[in-house]
């Protein structure tokens, strides 16, 4: 199969869906002329015109509000918030309006809105450009939250998101845009809410998503050399969570580890771990282990940044000491 980057995969998804459906349009800061801070929307303005690919002012709350207004009046907007770190500006609009409007209105409307953003550390950008804030959003009923790790998942899930009649927060990772992987040509859709077993194994279940999937797969390879076969599951959708796939694996391996980049306390791993306990308590041979980011604002220093988030080494060591 051909290999393309995560960035290209996303760009293809947007392009194909815009071609397919006139009601899809893009809006955000620097998405048009510039092609997106990380280049995801490159050339789409050239292809679809300035009407359908729109640069906005630096007005995150209005971007979300306007996306919602358009979504409930016949359009299918895909809006971009450049960094997830800026979400605190527009979380009122996402949490109170976007996610609740259907329920509050007694089911009388649908919200086909995709909010794209990216998060994560790795570029030594410091505390305002390195966060992983997905756990705020899994606490917002009415929203669906997707965090793809591979180019194929990125494409298949973004296309499905654009066709979905519920609001989606689609979180990319800044360190993955250049990652290459196989992506089927042409129409390729993936179901929202379905986890994927990225590596089969029997000794422990490791749940990892977004960038952490890669560090985890690397650690899994090294563990295999030591004779430990871990099963690596990428939930891909964090809300709703595919606990069935996870629980099935844990019932087989009797051990669960969550690898997450976000700061540990109140993070996504807490919810996943808690659900594992709720579903598989009697099957667990050890407490669910969280391998997570440090509970600190992200420091600028490259040395400290590296220490602040899990890497393959640490994942390898921590899993090994749990399983042995």
């Amino acid at each position, binding site marked *: 199969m051909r290999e393309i980057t995560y960035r290209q995969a996303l760009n293809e998804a947007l392009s194909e869906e815009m071609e397919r459906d006139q009601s899809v349009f893009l809006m955000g800061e620097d998405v048009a002329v510039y092609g997106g801070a990380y280049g995801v929307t490159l050339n789409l303005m050239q292809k679809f015109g300035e009407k359908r690919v729109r640069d906005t002012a630096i007005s995150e709350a209005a971007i979300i*509000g306007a996306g919602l207004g358009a979504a409930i009046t016949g359009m299918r907007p895909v809006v971009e918030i450049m960094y997830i770190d800026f979400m605190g500006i527009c979380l009122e609009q996402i949490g109170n309006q976007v996610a609740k409007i259907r329920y509050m209105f007694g089911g009388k409307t649908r919200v086909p809105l995709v909010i794209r953003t990216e998060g994560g550390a790795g570029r030594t950008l410091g505390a305002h450009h390195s966060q992983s804030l997905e756990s705020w959003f899994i606490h917002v009923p009415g929203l669906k939250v997707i965090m793809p790790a591979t180019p194929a998942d990125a494409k298949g899930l973004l296309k499905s998101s654009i066709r979905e009649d*519920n609001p989606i927060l689609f979180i990319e990772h800044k360190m993955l845009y250049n990652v290459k992987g196989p992506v089927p040509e042409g129409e390729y859709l993936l179901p929202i809410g379905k986890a994927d077993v990225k590596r089969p194994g029997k000794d422990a279940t490791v749940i990892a998503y977004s960038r952490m999937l890669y560090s985890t797969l690397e650690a899994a390879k090294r563990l295999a050399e030591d004779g430990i076969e871990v099963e690596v599951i990428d939930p891909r959708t964090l809300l709703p969570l595919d606990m069935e796939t996870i629980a099935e694996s844990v019932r087989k391996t009797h051990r669960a580890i969550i690898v997450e980049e976000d700061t540990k306390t109140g993070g996504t791993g807490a919810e996943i771990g808690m659900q594992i306990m709720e579903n598989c308590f009697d099957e667990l041979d050890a407490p669910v282990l969280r391998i997570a980011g440090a509970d600190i604002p992200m420091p600028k220093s490259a040395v400290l940044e590296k220490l602040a988030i899990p890497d393959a080494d640490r994942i390898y060591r921590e899993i090994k000491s749990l399983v042995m």
Partner: protein
Amino acid sequence: MTIYTMTIITKNEARHLLKQMMQIRQFEDAIMDLMARNIAEGGSHLYAGEEACAVGAMAAIRKDDYITSTHRGHGHAIAKGGSLPELMAEILGKETGVCKGKGGSLHLADVSKGNLGANGIVGGSIGIATGAGLSIQLRGADQIVLCFFGDGATNTGLFHESLNMAGKWKLPVVFICENNLYGMSVSVERACAVNDLTKKAAPYNMPAECCDGMDVLAVKDTVAKYAALARKGDGPAFIVCNTYRYYGHSRSDPRIYRTKEEEKSWRDRDCIMAFGRKMQEQTVLTEKEVADLEKEVTAELEAAVDFAIKSPDPKPEELYRDVYFEM
């Protein structure tokens, strides 16, 4: 008393405007009563006093146009064609309510009637209105959007972000600020760096105009003018309607931040009284017609209240329904 300019107005229209204002007033009075009797629970921000704004504005637009509303949204919902029984049932949180009892007073909405919703968040609808305008523009439709909000909302960041977007993109949105002098207890004078709220639109390249929000025809004419411009692609406008809420901000409000004299001076200019009198002076309506209308509305409200009270509560299985759209 307001001095009206002579306006040519048909009996039908006069009846319609007067009736809607009466409906709103009686709707709000009915809620006051239901609250006193502990039948209506929760917050209700009543629109009594401000009826001319919603009714005048809505008279200037089409059925297929959109509006967005506020926490003080009963009047907008009624004027935009909402059904009184369904709205009253919603206030009481009943299954038959326009939002199935899940929205309540703060979230009255009926997308099928173009009412994109009240909002519990001050300023919270202004972005939505802007997006509806964008949608119209992208679809090449000739609808417009009326975006209602209070004086207090002009101090929110979202107001400014949205007006800038609408102004830049020339979206067909008429922004209507219902300036009732207070945001809860804080007067415009104490909250805003300027008292003349039309200045709030100065950075956004759109016309701004004040009008007498106690005069239903003045509101209608002003909104009509800018609605027409928006409809033909000339972009948004900002209208400030000077008005007053009769009741407290919410039930528990002792209104210590304003004087009885101030309240009286506005009640003396009551929009329903003034319009009724004027229509009689201009011989558009007779005294009896006005009185009959009042009775007609009273009967409607009684029926609406009765319907609402007798309606069942939502069933428990409704709890989880409609969080998501399911294929």
